[in-house]
């Protein structure tokens, strides 16, 4: 079986500075795959390239059988690749309901969109209670829920989550992580970039450790969790 997402020797540069220096990995349908690593390792750059916001300088991206290298960003979501960006980036002056509708921008099945909005409200009840409120008035954790709900509105084949727990309180972080576990149980394919390596690796099928633009270590989530060097570098143990 070929993978849903196949990344081969991907390189991305900002001007002369190469941020991603030839990485390869794949995501199978139904899997949760995580990229972990310190700031500046190239994780966010990788996701932004997959969703077309950045252009690769070399390498191949094949998603669902189609090469993505030169597809413009606004056409990628139509192929089934949704991206919940780092820092949440909800539309602050639109309401919660309008944010969710924008997530379904390319869909035309009104009834289906309405049903999925209700599903998002079930997943995150707070969004339903505040549906008419400007999204900018939500707390950080609530905004993260909205960003994830919005990404799900496109009915993606692959959901990319960039640092969903960043800047959240421990309780909120737990809530977000348990939602990801729930989505996984429902069969959603997820590519997760996370600074909270412990949480990410415990729910991932496959993990990759990135350092300054390279993947330095790969394995199942469980293997990486007990790996000596990972424990030292990312789980705060010595």
């Amino acid at each position, binding site marked *: 079986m070929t993978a849903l997402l196949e990344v081969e020797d991907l390189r991305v540069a900002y001007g002369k500075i190469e941020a991603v220096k030839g990485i390869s990995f794949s995501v199978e349908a139904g899997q949760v795959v995580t990229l972990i690593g310190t700031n500046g390792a190239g994780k966010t750059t990788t996701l932004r390239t997959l*969703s*077309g*916001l950045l252009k690769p300088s070399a390498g191949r991206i094949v998603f669902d059988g189609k090469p993505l290298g030169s597809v*413009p*960003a*606004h*056409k990628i*979501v*139509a192929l089934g690749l*949704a*991206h919940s*960006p780092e820092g949440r*980036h909800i*539309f*602050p*002056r*639109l309401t919660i309901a*309008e944010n969710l*509708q*924008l*997530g379904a*921008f*390319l869909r035309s099945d009104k009834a289906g969109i309405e049903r999925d909005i209700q599903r998002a409200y079930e997943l995150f009840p707070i969004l339903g209670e505040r549906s008419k409120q*400007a999204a900018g008035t939500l707390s950080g954790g609530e905004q993260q829920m909205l960003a994830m709900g*919005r990404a799900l509105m*496109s009915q993606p084949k692959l959901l990319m989550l960039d640092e969903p727990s960043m800047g959240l309180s421990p309780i909120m972080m737990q809530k977000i992580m348990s939602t990801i576990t729930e989505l996984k149980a429902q069969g959603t394919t997820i590519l997760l970039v996370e600074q909270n390596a412990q949480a990410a690796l415990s729910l991932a099928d496959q993990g990759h450790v990135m350092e300054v633009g390279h993947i330095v270590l790969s394995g199942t989530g469980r293997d990486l969790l007990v790996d000596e060097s990972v424990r030292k570098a990312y789980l705060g143990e010595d």
Partner: protein
Amino acid sequence: MNELPQQLANGLALGALYGLIAIGYTMVYGIVQLINFAHGEIFMIGGFGALTIYIWLPSGVSLLVAIPLMIIGGAIASVAVATAAERFAYRPLRGAPRLAPLITAIGLSIALQQIVWGFYPDAKKHKSFPEFSGDAFKITDDLLIQRADAFVLVLAPLCMLALGFFVSKSRSGRAMQATAQDPDTAKLMGVNTDRIIVMAFAIGAAFAAVAAVAYGLDKGQINFEMGFILGLKAFTAAVLGGIGNIYGAMVGGVVLGLAESLSIAYIEEIPGMHQLGGGAWSNVWAFVLLIVVLLVRPQGLLGERVADRA
């Protein structure tokens, strides 16, 4: 005779005209953070487009028939020039330092004036524009509304209503708000932001064409230089109202129009400068008002009613 109602009506009509032009500045700024200083010339070209249609029409045709056609013709001309400017002058500079598109806009403004001056038949002189015949509407003894003023007073609110509805209710309008707030994330939703930017330029240009027809009908003439001062005033109106906010553009226009008309009427003499009383000072008061607002409320009058920004 009480002068006030008449001055208020004059100010409103002038302000509605400024507001219609100001929409173009504010929409483009709201989406690409560019001050399109060539927008005054887009307005002027709308006027020449409308005049061209009028010249093509058989003589003696009723203005009721001619005006809608002139608005369409003016809008075709202004939208064509504005979208071409976006495509060939501004888009290549996206991501360049902010000064580059600004200087391009000023250059484009001069170029467009010179092109009309050089190539439109006889444009070196003022071109006469059709005028309403018939009397002004007499509302009370103290208040006469000229037909040209009535035209802009009816059309401007209609245009604003249509735009407000489009931006807040339609799918493209929502995509436009998303692009204004966060262009990269809008792309992630599947919004073709290039198309939205073109749309913002086009809507601003169409509104400018409506304004140009109103202006021509009022003055009875248009000329290749008219976009300069009117563009500057409309830009002032946009900043006054809170640039980026479509309702702010209209509010800013009306405040500016009223300030001008009332200052002409009531500030007759500046001590020691009595040779310059009245009308000569209207531009001064307009820009004084701008400076005061920028000092007291730099975000503009509606700069914080952010829910409506587009």
